[in-house]
């Protein structure tokens, strides 16, 4: 199994008459799998909220979805289940799946009552996962339906970051409408995993299955992107590095002189990660490397460091890839069409986030404008579903109504990723679309 890196600039040419230029670098990381890929065991922990609000159909569907997950796993995989309300307890201790029926019975014994402390659940999950973390692919699915009333959100984040440092991945599933999308998104981002939205109980199974497929496709773990910048190249001030595929995640680089390191987490077969780096290039102090073309600037060198659980090796390095730029006299902008969709995906996320910030500050008109521009961006990248949801949210806000909890979660989900499964249209359908006010 090997790692492939490709680097593409948004526009490979630089205008020699300007002194600084801004460029985006799209880095795509993919895994080449060979036949023996599937031999690594999965180490899965299901962390399930069984607070009082989950009583009845919600908990039943979750139990059913969990049972179906068990059926899809191999007997060499490890399974553990943690149940939490305002406290957490181990329902199924970490074990290989030699007796799936006993595991399913234990899951069935969960009863709904009590409050919600997500961090207690995550803490126990990390303990259980650690028991089998050698040479496995460790993943946790954390499901909750409500706010972290009895818990501490900061602690959740810390546990999630800890999990990532141990090479484990945390995914979050929000059940229903009452959970906090900011908290669950942050936990998933810190834990290197995905966020899923179970809008209504009959979606539970499909969302669990989707995450399981993702977990099973992991080939390499604990991946880090290492960037080395030329002296005349610098990262943009504001949030310069972000992942855009498969989900949009803001990444925080660690700096060591001219080298920046960013954690990526799992590398999945058939599900490449694309990262956008926002750079500023200073033409004047460029070190022109006398290569084949005399005006080319070697701007960035990228490499991946990763662990391979299959071969039991850690700290492996991919070959380094260099991205360069060319200074041109008669410059005309030429946007690389392969990089454009990635920039649009990031724009869609950022614009939606700005809209949410403005809404929190009370600037309703500003939020409407940003949502509308996010909808336009979504259309430009061909994501019609996102465009519909974003525009509908903008219209609802404009008419003076607040967004429902379901609408807010849908808005967050479409901004973060390109959904494959069509979601339900929001319950409030605007009868007429008013024209946006002209500024």
């Amino acid at each position, binding site marked *: 199994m090997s790692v492939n890196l490709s680097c593409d600039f948004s526009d490979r040419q630089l205008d020699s008459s*300007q*002194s*600084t*230029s*801004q460029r*985006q670098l799209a880095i795509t990381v993919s895994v080449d799998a060979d036949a023996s890929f599937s031999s690594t065991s999965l180490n899965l922990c299901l962390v399930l909220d069984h607070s009082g609000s989950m009583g009845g159909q919600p908990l039943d569907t979750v139990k059913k979805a969990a049972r179906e997950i068990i059926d899809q796993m191999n007997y060499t995989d490890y399974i553990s289940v943690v149940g939490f309300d305002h406290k957490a307890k181990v329902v199924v201790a970490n074990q290989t799946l030699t007796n799936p029926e006993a595991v399913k019975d234990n899951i069935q014994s969960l009863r709904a009552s009590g409050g919600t402390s997500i961090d207690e659940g995550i803490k126990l999950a990390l303990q259980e996962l650690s028991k089998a973390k050698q040479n496995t692919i460790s993943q946790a699915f954390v499901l909750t339906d409500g706010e972290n009333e009895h818990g501490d959100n900061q602690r959740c984040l810390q546990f999630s970051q800890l999990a990532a440092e141990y090479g484990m991945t945390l995914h979050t599933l929000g059940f229903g409408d009452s959970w906090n999308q900011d908290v669950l998104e942050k936990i998933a981002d810190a834990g290197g995993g995905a966020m899923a939205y179970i809008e209504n109980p009959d979606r539970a199974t499909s969302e669990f299955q989707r995450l399981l497929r993702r977990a099973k496709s992991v080939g390499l773990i604990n991946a880090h992107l290492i960037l080395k910048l030329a002296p005349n190249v610098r990262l*943009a*001030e*504001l*949030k*310069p590095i972000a992942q855009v595929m498969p989900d949009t995640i803001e990444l925080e680089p660690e700096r060591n002189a001219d080298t920046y390191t960013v954690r990526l987490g799992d590398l999945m077969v058939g599900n490449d990660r694309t990262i956008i780096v*926002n750079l*500023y290039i200073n033409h004047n102090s460029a070190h022109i490397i006398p290569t084949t073309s005399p005006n080319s600037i070697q701007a960035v060198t990228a490499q991946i460091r990763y662990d391979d659980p299959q071969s039991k090796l850690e700290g492996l390095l991919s070959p380094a890839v260099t991205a360069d730029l060319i200074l041109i006299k008669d410059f005309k*902008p030429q946007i690389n069409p392969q990089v454009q969709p990635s*920039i*649009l995906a*990031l*724009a869609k996320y*950022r*614009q939606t986030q*700005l809209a949410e910030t403005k809404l929190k500050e009370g600037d309703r008109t500003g939020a409407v*404008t*940003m949502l509308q*521009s996010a909808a336009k961006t979504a259309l430009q990248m061909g994501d019609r579903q996102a465009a519909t949801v974003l525009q509908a949210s903008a219209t609802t806000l404009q008419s003076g109504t607040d967004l429902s909890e379901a609408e807010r979660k849908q808005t967050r989900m479409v901004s973060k990723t390109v959904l494959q499964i069509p979601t339900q249209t929001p319950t409030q359908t605007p009868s007429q679309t008013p024209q946006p006010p002209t500024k």
Partner: protein
Amino acid sequence: MIICPNCSHQNPDGATYCDSCYTPLPVITTVNCPSCGSPVQSDASFCGSCGFNLKSATQSIKNMPEETDHPSTLEEIVPTPESPDSIPDLPNEIEFEPELIESAPAENNPHTQLQQVGAFLIHVQTNIKLELPTNLQVIHIGKPNNMIPPDIDVSGFPDSDIVSRVHADIRFEGNAFYFEDTGSSNGTYMNNSVLPAGNRHKLRSGDRISLGKGDRVSFIFQMS
């Protein structure tokens, strides 16, 4: 600093996408005004410093030879101006032979000798020169209406919808011209800053008067 039109984030020079929201940024370079040399943005229509029409091939200055020949004298009695190019709706000019006329090297035949002080407004967007009728103490600027009919009727100019029917007046007192917004809906800007209604502004040559926001109906005042 390039300010994002979408989220107002301040981006460093050289940015093509906003660092915050990745909206494509307009590419603006700075050039020099061919008339006065001050820096203007490449997408500007008029120079902010001298009013030069950056979009036109022929300079608007060519239509006003008097300015380049004479220094603008404010308080003194000024020499006669040439006959105006086109004046809409002005009343009869009263011809005088004032004693203190300098011999003006006017290119056109100075048959029309007006009263001591002559002044005009140059409509910036069309380069039309409007002579201020000197027989009137107060000159009303606006559009046709029943209350105070305008002496200078701007309804024929482009974008005149932004101008109120009773918009402003210019009065001549003690050898000076004063401009006042008489309660317009969209306001008046004097040299790009707001002129509140009721505030009388003493006009000087080169003053830029903008009726309404956005510099859509603008005049340059000139004494001759």
